[in-house]
């Protein structure tokens, strides 16, 4: 039988690209709209509020740029500052568009990696009679749109504000938008090529892990730059003239990225010839780049070239039973005390946390913060300011104790940060693999003990290192060091107990990406409660020392009372919450 005759005659596949792109983009819009429509009322209100807030922010930037850039042109200010601000103002479009290009290039890398290699819809789309180019164009749009919207939120009002304050030609405004869109697409095109080249070397999932790790480290480092800069403030000093010099680099002609900004300024000021030349060069360059990237990426992807990794994983030659050797070492100290399943879970968790870079990026944050705070303490040397010398002896002694122990409190804070991840998400960390523990003959107490140790041991280790460094820097006495160590051991145990209990209550086993593990409301509640309990618990160790000073009692009494009361409360924090969630732990993952 000729099956062709049975095909419906009217259905000829549409090979036009634009209708297909529109169809695919419309699908994406529909998914977004459905997400909004099916969201809870509270979420809908929140989303509308955020949109209004962003709109207000854009209007604010527009009006501020308009006012400030206008003010900068005033002859009085120019006379007062003594710098011609006109070239600086003219450099703003080039600078903004360069940031847009580089920003889109970097941010769309992750989105494209996800969209091309890690989302499940690529195979589905390529198997349908939709032109492959349309699929790629849609993916590029998909990668560009969120970042473009974000950059536009800052850049567009700024450039429009510049146009208004300089009374630029009306053609300036639509061209700002056109140039921004074309440059963003060219950047996404470049990015897609980079993605394919990276996937040629690394498996996509591994590339995503590394990207997540680098992103987290850069993000945290940038966020902490302010702290470092204020600590080392005197060393970093950028004068206004130097800043203006940096801005003026944007006016050089030899950087193609500057052509767009210079073309826009020329257009705004009515220099038609230079504006036409520069804008045609920009648009031509961007469109050719986008087209080349699109065709190359499409061809490399479709031919499967990108998936043939040139660098295969190098197998390390290990001993015949490396795991056994590992476990033997690990068990040397603990084996006599801990049950086998507990040790197995602890070791498994340490291995999986260490091997998944996406987990590691979350754990590295406390380490970076710890290093930053240690450096700050090292710079300050932990010395009590002498003041005018009028303060009484007991006050200065108490102050010295408080100062010394406040640094110990800092090490507790670093420990708490690592606990928030390890204890708060201890159970959620299991994800879809939790069934393996659930079908195994493990006592619920052993399970809780294992998860407790997985969180507690690294936090304690970090706290101990931090405390040792502080003790050396601040020349703490041996007694104070031992007392601080006991306080850290007990307080961190208490916080682990609370966070782990909240982690059980809000356990989430349905995630696919470790960065999306969250314990929801319960996780947040756990963090808030421990933020309150940690100072209480630590305060009960420290307060008796100050009181002993105040009432002129021997300091030994202070240590003794602090030890009894502080340890008692911390032990309560450790055991009571875990006792309360014991039943719940038995029934975890039984939705």
């Amino acid at each position, binding site marked *: 039988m000729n099956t062709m005759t049975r095909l419906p005659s009217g259905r000829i596949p549409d090979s036009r690209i634009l209708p297909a792109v529109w169809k695919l983009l419309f699908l994406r819009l529909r998914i977004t709209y459905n997400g909004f429509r099916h969201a809870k009322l509270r979420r809908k209100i929140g989303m509308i509020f955020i949109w209004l807030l962003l709109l207000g922010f854009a209007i604010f930037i527009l009006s501020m740029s308009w006012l400030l850039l206008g003010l900068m042109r005033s002859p009085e200010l120019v006379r007062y500052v003594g710098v011609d601000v006109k070239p600086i103002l003219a450099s703003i479009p080039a600078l903004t568009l360069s940031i847009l290009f580089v920003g889109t290039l970097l941010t769309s890398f992750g989105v494209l990696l996800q969209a091309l290699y890690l989302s499940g819809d690529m195979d589905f789309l390529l198997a349908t009679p939709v032109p492959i180019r349309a699929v790629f164009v849609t993916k590029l749009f998909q990668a560009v749109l969120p970042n473009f919207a974000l950059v536009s939120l800052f850049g567009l009002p700024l450039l429009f504000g510049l146009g208004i304050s300089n009374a630029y030609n009306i053609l300036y405004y639509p061209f700002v938008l056109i140039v921004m869109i074309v440059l963003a697409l060219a950047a996404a095109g470049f990015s897609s090529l980079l993605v394919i080249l990276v996937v040629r070397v690394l498996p996509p999932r591994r590339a995503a892990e590394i990207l997540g790790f680098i992103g987290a480290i850069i993000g945290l480092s940038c966020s902490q730059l302010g702290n470092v800069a204020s600590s080392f403030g005197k060393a970093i000093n950028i004068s206004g003239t130097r800043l203006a010099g940096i801005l003026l680099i944007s006016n050089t002609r030899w950087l193609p990225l500057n052509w767009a900004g210079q073309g826009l300024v020329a257009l705004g000021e009515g220099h038609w010839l230079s504006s036409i030349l520069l804008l045609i060069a920009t648009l031509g360059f961007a469109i050719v780049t986008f087209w080349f990237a699109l065709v190359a990426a499409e061809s490399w992807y479709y031919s499967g070239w990108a998936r043939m990794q040139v660098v295969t*994983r190098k*197998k390390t030659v290990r001993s015949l039973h490396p795991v*056994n050797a590992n476990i033997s070492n690990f068990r040397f100290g603990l084996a006599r005390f801990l049950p086998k399943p507990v040790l197995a879970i602890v070791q498994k968790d340490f291995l999986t946390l260490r091997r998944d870079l996406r987990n590691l990026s979350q754990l590295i944050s406390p380490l970076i913060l710890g290093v930053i705070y240690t450096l700050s303490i090292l710079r300050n040397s932990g010395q009590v300011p002498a003041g005018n010398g009028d303060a009484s002896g007991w006050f200065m002694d108490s102050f010295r104790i408080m100062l010394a122990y406040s640094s110990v409190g800092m090490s507790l804070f670093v420990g708490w940060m690592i606990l928030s991840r390890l204890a708060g998400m201890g159970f959620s960390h299991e994800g879809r693999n939790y*069934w393996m523990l*659930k*079908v195994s*003959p493990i006592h619920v107490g052993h399970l809780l003990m294992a998860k407790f140790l997985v969180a507690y041991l690294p936090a304690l280790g970090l706290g101990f290192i931090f405390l040792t460094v502080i003790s050396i820097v601040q020349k703490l006495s041996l007694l104070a060091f031992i007392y601080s160590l006991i306080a850290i051991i007990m307080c961190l145990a208490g916080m682990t107990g609370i966070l782990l209990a909240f982690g059980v209550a809000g356990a989430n086993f349905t995630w696919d990406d470790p960065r999306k593990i969250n314990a929801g409301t319960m996780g947040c509640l756990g963090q808030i409660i421990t933020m309150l309990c940690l100072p209480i618990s630590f305060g009960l160790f420290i307060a008796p020392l100050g009181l002993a000073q105040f009432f002129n009692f021997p300091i030994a009494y202070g240590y003794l009372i602090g030890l009894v009361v502080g340890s008692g409360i911390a032990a309560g924090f450790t055991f009571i919450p875990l006792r309360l969630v014991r039943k719940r732990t038995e029934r975890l993952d039984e939705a």
Partner: protein
Amino acid sequence: MNETLIETRNLVKRYGDTVAVNDISFDVFGGEMFGFLGPNGAGKTTTIKMIVGLLQPTSGAIKVAGYDVQTQSMFAKASTGYVPDTPNLYAKLTGRELLSFVGDLYSMDRGQVAHRIDELLRMFDLSAVGEDTVDSYSHGMQQKASLAAALMHDPKVLVLDEPTVGLDPKSARLIKDILRQLANRGAAVMLSTHILEIAERMCDRIGIINKGELIAVGTMDELRTLDKTGQASLEDIFLGLTGGAEEAEIAEVLK
């Protein structure tokens, strides 16, 4: 008759108003392979999850190897091996580490663990990738690793949910042979499958579940008595019991 290794009595599982499993009772004996069949959403996986202790029944009782799964869960679990329909395994552990981990969860002796790992990796043709992390395995390899993990502690009861999905013919045959050997050694093997041919060829007895209710249970000969001709295949019996109206609809769509 061999001892009863899986015993379910009036098993019910409700999710709110939805009854996923309704008053099911059946036994699986040592030395037999029990096939558990049913259309999609019939309640097979829910029943299996209750048997292995992943899900608490709303009412009813389950005993595995003579132990109540609710009150003596540790003993019941220690006697059971389970292979889920989707092999969700710890992606960042190597095959060898995964099996070692499972051995420790079941408190196995270290020497025994090492010996068993070598044996299982060799048996499932995974020795070459034993040092590779599970996320580098294909679906079929993960399925085999999952079965190896279930066999680590040499269970008396083995429960498998769709064990042959995604396996190449060689691996599927291997798994069938292993399951038969286990049954011959006195273990109870319960497996759910959509492939009726496998159930017909391999299983000693078959249970058919539909809309949460066990509608038939017995040997192939016993099931054939439900058909007027007495010569029907399992496929005919299954479609007859679970309703074949969908067939007509499918044929209509494909016309």
